[in-house]
């Protein structure tokens, strides 16, 4: 078996005596689609913050592509191929849509244009062209010049995803990408993520929308109170009594209840 792109080993962290992540281990195989789910406050976002280096774990290790990245500073991790989006949208409010996306290119070794090359020479530059193309691909082609602060929630959510993609990551961490999207939009997003996964990008997705989880991801890791309570195929997750009890509730027991 090839080395997994991400492997999390016995990760723990506590804040002021409160253990938020407790000895969690899981892996994401290269090209896999892993869902990280669990009730509110289970520690999903905290795992993302540990992976991207916002927090330092008290115990345990994180390996990216087999290499230990415990000591890599947070800013270096995106360059190692791990990009993320945020649960509460964190776009740069004063940058335009396309500028936000160009910021996503920053960490790439092969990014178009160096630090001191202009990004806007007579309105064009390779970096800008690439960013606009990526936006158009996401159906956001009409917005590039707009400041992001005034855009609707759903649009900003998508821009954040595009910004993460602009880093050309091997591993993409998405924190509730479908929150705030309606059924149709969620379906579109799913198709898009499917396409991205098709290009070999590994997905690690935190999401409460079970329809998306089920159709997009092949394995699921379920957390509850900072502990892993399930790790296995998505298809089976709804049969696990512990998961039902802690996360899904009785409504989801048995077959396909809709949670569009």
């Amino acid at each position, binding site marked *: 078996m090839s080395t997994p792109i991400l492997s999390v080993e016995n990760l723990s962290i506590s804040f002021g005596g409160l253990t938020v992540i407790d000895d969690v281990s899981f892996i994401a195989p290269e090209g896999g689609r892993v869902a990280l789910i*669990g009730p*509110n*406050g289970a520690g999903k976002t*905290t795992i993302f913050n540990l992976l991207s280096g916002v927090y330092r774990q008290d115990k345990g290790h994180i390996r990216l592509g087999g290499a230990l990245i415990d000591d890599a500073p947070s800013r270096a991790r995106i360059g190692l191929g791990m990009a993320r989006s945020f649960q509460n949208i964190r776009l740069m409010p004063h940058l335009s849509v396309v500028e936000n996306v160009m910021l996503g290119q920053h960490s790439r070794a092969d990014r178009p244009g160096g630090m001191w090359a202009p990004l806007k020479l007579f309105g064009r530059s390779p970096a800008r062209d690439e960013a606009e193309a990526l936006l158009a691909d996401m159906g956001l082609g009409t917005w590039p010049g707009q400041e992001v602060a005034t855009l609707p929630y759903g649009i900003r959510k998508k821009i954040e995803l595009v910004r993460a993609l602009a880093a050309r990551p091997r591993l993409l961490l998405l924190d509730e990408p479908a929150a705030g999207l*309606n*059924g149709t939009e969620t*379906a579109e997003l799913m198709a898009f993520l499917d396409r991205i996964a098709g290009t070999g990008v590994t997905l690690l997705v935190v999401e*409460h929308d079970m329809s998306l989880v089920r159709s997009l991801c092949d394995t699921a890791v379920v957390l509850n109170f900072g502990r892993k309570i399930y790790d296995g195929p998505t298809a089976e997750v709804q049969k696990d009594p512990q998961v039902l009890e802690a996360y899904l509730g009785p409504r989801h027991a048995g077959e396909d209840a809709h949670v569009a």
Partner: protein
Amino acid sequence: MLLDVKDLEVTYGRTRAVRGVSLSVAEGEIVTVLGSNGAGKTSLLRALQGARKPQGGKITFDGRDMTNASPATRLAAGMALVPEGRQIFVSMTVHENLLMGAYLRGEGGLDRDLDAIYERFPNLATRRDMKASVLSGGEQQMLAVGRALISRPRLMMLDEPSLGLSPLFVAKLFALIREINDGGLSILLVEQNTHMALDVAQRGVVLELGREMLSGSAAELAADPSLAEAYLGAA
């Protein structure tokens, strides 16, 4: 009618976010507002709560003209909003955030109401004296809902309350909505979770680019094929 909105107009510079929307909420009724991203739902609620001055139209609440009233006046009259993006005070503790919900109503019976909130949202109870900034996304959402409940409104306006909540809690939330509605509270609900919203509501309004596109009883809307195509996804 408890709330009556006539030809409401909301603009930002040259952007017309809400264009002549009319809707009403009767005493004890749940009305849901649906629509895709950028349809103007949030703008509508902001105008109703008084955070944004409408450029035209009229808002009547309980027979009183509220078109130009301050948010405090509206709140005192019984209109409460759970805003988009939670808007909790991250530098305050969970408990202080809840107390902020009681800012206008005074202390009478407050302890009982607080206990009820803590009981309903156990996550909040265990984090009572922590800074709200460390809460998880869903916990923050619970806090925002709890805070609005504390103000004991007559009309509760909810802007995507299920955002970021786990399925179990979404179910709990909708049960709660039904329960408080049974207690006589009217509710104006903005939701992306179209199925559940139509499930709980009596009537619905669908906005598109700031205009009212469809409206009717929840059952009619749920059966409407154009709506199914636009909002319910292929599923």
